[in-house]
């Protein structure tokens, strides 16, 4: 192959690793934007009406736009591209022992559509009227008509950006699923697939199976906005609740679309760093399947008080509480995996363990919201905000950092600094709790969401509550500052870090059989698989790991 120039190699590449990194860097930039938005509106909440450093005074209109786009960005342009697309693209071909995705050009197209969607979204902040401010759920009629939301162009661009993002992930998902199904290395049977790949592919299937109705809905909403149809406008005979069904039929599985890959990443890391076989591999799979299936029958718990038939709420309260069972079981499996291990607290492991600890809080607080009776009170309060940040933050931040610290040597052939990594960990995890624990309390006290100042609400305007808000804001700023060591560590290590060997963590899965970083085509000779992925500390073996591709000595393959 002829030498590729810069453009071919990094911008229009079809190499799955480069595309994964394109997703990663785009996701990082979007995360910085989302973090900046969070900083701005938290400052407004802590010090209402004062000028926010780096933004100016926040008007109610801008406040709405900031919270809306913070949510949209963090879910669609950070969690999904990093968890699904970065790790999916980077890991799938490496971990199944082949040279690339089955459709490299489709893969490139998927990133290009994604990049376009990000550009459209960012552009929507600068059009006349500003960015869309109707909450990330975009309930009509507010989202459907400019006379209500006052962001004629912002709302339309927002919708187009989200729809394009869906298309990008449909294209990527088809690639992921087909690749895992068809292109595994010789000998890699169903139960030899590393959990993280199962999770990414299950997540892609979940996404594909849930997003369709919302795509149809998005087209209808787009027509409502631009052509003046009335699908969701009661004045024209439409039904605003219909949008909520379409949105949450996607929106709730979407939680599991990002949760499952995070769970997978954590599974890889805790097995490697506790030198343990994963406890009950098949149970993890079954719980993931069960979660995926159940997730299609819980959507209306977001709409208990939205005006749906109250009898329907009973059904959804039952299914919602049932889904706690597989999730709890999955967490138990992970905790049980630690039993009898030899735990090394590397930066990656710290992040992975903190994921378990923090996600537990997110999980149990969900029960308050799934229980219909309690949700009457908690709905749309900060309790909800704190709850889903305790799920999404571990997913999109803690698990992602765990994955980055763990696979960084493979991605760039160098190690990140462990010391800086640990500083970064404590500087992220402690402030994270200080941000959101107060919000549980404020939510329980009745503080409702998406309000730009609580000065008008006498019950919420007490000095004690304001102190809690200030605490959360200060913790956020501390946390954001502690991302600087990470960014320094990340970019400096890329250039000057300690050179990594092919398998620095002594892990079993196939990506560590390739050189670090893997060249185009990944493997010198494509590996074959002889055993399941988590054979650590097998009795009677000298070394405590047993790579999947290592030929059994003496006896023939079982």
């Amino acid at each position: 192959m002829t030498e590729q120039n810069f453009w071919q190699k990094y911008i229009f590449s079809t190499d799955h690793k480069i595309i994964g990194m394109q997703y990663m860097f785009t996701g990082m930039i979007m995360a910085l934007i989302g973090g900046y938005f969070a900083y701005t509106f938290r400052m407004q909440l802590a010090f209402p009406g004062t000028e926010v450093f780096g933004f100016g005074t926040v008007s109610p209109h801008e406040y709405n736009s900031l919270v809306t786009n913070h949510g949209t960005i963090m879910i669609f342009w950070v969690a999904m591209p990093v968890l699904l697309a970065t790790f999916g693209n980077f890991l799938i071909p490496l971990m199944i022992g082949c040279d690339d995705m089955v459709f490299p050009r489709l893969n490139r197209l998927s990133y290009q559509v994604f990049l376009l969607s990000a550009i459209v979204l960012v552009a929507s902040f600068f059009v006349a009227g500003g960015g869309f401010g109707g909450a990330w759920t975009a309930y009509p009629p507010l989202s459907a008509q400019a006379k209500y939301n006052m962001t004629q162009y912002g709302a339309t661009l927002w919708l187009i950006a989200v729809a394009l993002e869906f298309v990008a992930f449909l294209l990527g998902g088809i690639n992921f699923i087909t690749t895992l199904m068809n292109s595994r290395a010789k000998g890699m049977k169903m139960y030899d697939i590393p959990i993280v790949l199962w999770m990414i592919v299950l997540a892609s299937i979940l996404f594909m199976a849930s997003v369709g109705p919302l795509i149809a809905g998005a087209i209808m909403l787009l027509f409502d906005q631009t052509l003046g149809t009335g699908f969701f406008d009661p004045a024209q005979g439409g039904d605003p609740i219909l949008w909520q069904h379409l949105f949450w039929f996607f929106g709730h599985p979407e939680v599991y679309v990002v949760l499952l890959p995070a769970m997978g990443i954590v599974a890889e890391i805790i097995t490697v760093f506790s030198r343990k076989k994963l406890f009950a591999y098949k149970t993890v799979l079954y719980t993931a399947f069960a979660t995926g299936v159940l997730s299609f029958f819980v959507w209306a718990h977001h709409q208990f008080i939205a005006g749906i038939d109250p009898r329907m709420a009973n059904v959804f309260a039952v299914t919602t509480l049932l889904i706690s069972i597989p999730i709890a079981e999955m967490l138990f499996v992970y905790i049980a995996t630690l039993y009898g291990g030899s735990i090394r607290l590397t930066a990656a492991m710290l992040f992975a363990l903190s994921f378990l600890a923090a996600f537990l809080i997110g999980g149990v607080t969900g029960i308050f919201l799934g229980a219909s009776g309690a949700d009457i009170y908690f709905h749309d309060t900060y309790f909800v905000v704190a709850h889903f940040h305790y799920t999404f933050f571990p997913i999109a931040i803690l698990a992602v950092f765990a994955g980055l610290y763990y696979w960084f040597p493979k991605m760039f052939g160098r190690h990140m600094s462990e010391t800086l990594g640990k500083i970064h960990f404590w500087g992220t995890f402690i402030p994270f709790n200080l941000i959101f624990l107060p919000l549980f309390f404020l939510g329980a006290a009745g503080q409702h969401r998406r309000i730009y100042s609580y000065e008008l609400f006498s019950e919420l305007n007490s000095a004690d509550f304001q102190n809690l808000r200030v605490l959360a804001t200060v913790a956020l700023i501390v946390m954001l500052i502690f991302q600087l060591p990470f960014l320094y560590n990340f970019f400096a290590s890329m250039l000057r870090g300690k050179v990594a060997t092919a398998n620095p963590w002594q892990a079993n899965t196939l990506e560590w059989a390739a050189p670090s970083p893997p060249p185009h085509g990944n493997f010198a000779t494509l590996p074959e698989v002889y055993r399941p992925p988590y054979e650590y500390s097998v009795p009677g073996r000298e070394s405590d790991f047993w790579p999947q591709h290592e030929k059994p000595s003496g006896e023939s393959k079982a």
Partner: protein
Amino acid sequence: MDLIIEQASSFAADIDMVILLIAVLAGFWFFLAEAVLFYFIFKFRQRKGVKAQYITGTRKEEKKWLHWPHNLIIVCDLVIIFFAIKVWYDIKQDLPPAQEVVQVIGRQWSWQFVHPGLDKQLGTADDVATVDELRVKVGVTYHFKLESRDVLHSFSVPVFRLKQDAVPGRVFTGWFTPTKTGTYDIQCAEMCGMGHGLMQGRLVIEDEAAHDEWLRNKAT
């Protein structure tokens, strides 16, 4: 719950009871799981010369460590479901007969309330309409007729533990019985556009004499 926010309706205590129940049941599992997690992290930290054990998690005596918590959680879930649905039924599905009816109308960005006059009948000439102020009598069971004129709003009264979305084109009927006099907040809990944060109302719960006095003043 009643320590951080007052209970001012007949069903507020029921909702708080469900919240407490979940807090106890879920809290138990939460602290147990966290304790086990941290204990394992400490106990099985890397030590010289100690090799990790090889446990597949597929043998029966290993799996029981999953099955027992699993079954117990199902039991806890069922208990929670039972009480959650019971409270839900009482508040949202069951509709006790009304002694009086008020109309609640959400619009961008204010609440309008229509109170029945001294005749206690809504839709007559002596109805009293107010903006951002709802006045009700303590101990009287009210039905509210909730409407919206433009986009979605949500009628939320934290001290009542009551919340219901208002949907344009529909009228929802719900109920509450105030149990305590005082002045409290009414919120809009569904994003409704630019002035969503300004959509604040006052709830005044007073005894019958004071309420009638207020009605008489309004009539003149």
